[in-house]
């Protein structure tokens, strides 16, 4: 009754025993995510943003909160831009709808915090930091 098929099964596992394993050893080997990967924070290029608010209106889960102010020329300006990744569906609708293409994914695939607040990002502050970093690296380059 029992017999042949059990041996076939055992042959399968034995063969596998001597094959190369497929595990990516994670912290040392980072996964290949591709250029279309959606994940991480939203990197906002503030200088390009026209504060139209389309991204906020298109977000299905209300994870983008932006406020605008009118400057002296009566032009709308960003006042604050908050991306709550804890609520984000990573659906890409905000990125696609942006008329000036000033939103991109930061493409981190793993980030966790000890509280929900750690998942809320102020995209304008992040942009300022990025610009600051770039300037610094430029100046060091010039000096060097």
């Amino acid at each position, binding site marked *: *009754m*029992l*017999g042949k*098929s*059990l041996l*076939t*099964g055992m*042959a*399968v*596992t034995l063969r*596998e025993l001597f094959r190369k394993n*497929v595990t990516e050893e994670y912290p040392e080997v980072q996964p290949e*995510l*591709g250029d*279309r*990967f*959606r*994940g991480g924070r939203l990197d906002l290029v503030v200088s390009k943003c026209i504060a139209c608010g389309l991204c906020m209106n*298109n*977000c*299905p889960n209300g994870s983008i909160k932006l406020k605008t102010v009118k400057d002296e020329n009566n032009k709308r300006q960003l006042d604050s831009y908050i991306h709550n990744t804890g609520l984000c*569906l*990573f*659906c*890409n*609708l905000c990125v*696609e709808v942006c008329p000036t293409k000033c939103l991109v*994914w930061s493409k981190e695939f793993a980030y966790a915090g000890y509280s929900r607040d750690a998942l809320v990002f102020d995209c304008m502050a992040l942009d300022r930091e990025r610009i600051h970093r770039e300037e610094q690296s430029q100046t060091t380059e010039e000096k060097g």
Partner: protein
Amino acid sequence: MQTQTFELNMGPQHPATHGVLRVVLELDGEIVVKATPVIGYLHRGIEKICENRTYVQSIPFTDRMDYLSGMNNNLAICQTIEKLMALEIPERAEYIRVITAELNRIASHMITIGVLALDLGGWTGMVYCFRDRERILDLFNSLCGARMTFNYIRVGGVGWDLPEGWLDECRRFLKDLPEMLKTYEDLISGNEILQMRLKGVAPLSAERAIAMSASGAVLRASGVDYDVRKANPYGIYDRFDFEVPLGTSGDNWDRFYLRYLEIIQSARIIEQALEQIPEGPVMAKVPKMIKPPVGEVYHHVENPRGDLGFYLVSDGSPKPYRWHARRPAMINLQLLDELSRGTFIADVVATLGTLDPVLGEVDC
């Protein structure tokens, strides 16, 4: 001797309930007298949420219903909206939709097979299935940047065109598929212990299956030839040559093995689609704000778990007036009590595995 039945709570935290299903078992020793599935632990009110979203915004929520077959869900909701708007889809987009939907069906069935093996105690089978499914998820990731919650199929087409080399990668996967299936056959479905565990257990007659409104492999295992892709072809499914595998007795084995056979048919469809796929745009002209004409529409597709239907009522505003999903896993799950009675505890686990509910969809 006087004996007494007792109640056993299986779940919501239990290794074999596929998520957060709770089954209240009334047991006579090891024999099940009654099995009551208690659902709702994962209820998020997706239907109501989507009634407060625009049509486009509701697509990502369908990814989170049956999270093992996001592409098919995307396809279903998009085709429903397109039907409501009477929108024409570019050819290339139609082919990409078929390819991704069938790939997703293969991925989903791999999980069904693997998890059933796990439920029956065969760990290694599960790992192989998940390992091979990873190939498909990688394909999807390079296609749309997500592995499970795709939001790839959109109203009017698909979100992105195929990246370079994707079709070759897909062909390579199809070339390797027979070997993967051979492994499953050798290790899982060919195994006599597994066959002993599944054959003749929990049979479902065709009449009962129809009466209980079962669909998908659960229905076809009972010998009812009903596959939406054939019975009511949507998209371009009428252009492909494939068979609908049928079972005879509707027992656990038939339900299980049908999924194995369906993988082969899906691969056939993809092969044909890969040959025929034309060049061209992947997105139709769609207005920025979708406001379908007043009316209602019902559209259904063959999802890996069964007949997934969406019912939309439009009042002409940007948001649907009613957004309803006919969830196959939810309806198939109702058979659990009927099928489990008189079987062993171990069979409940197997029956649950072959009914294959995904709790995200059951609870919605």
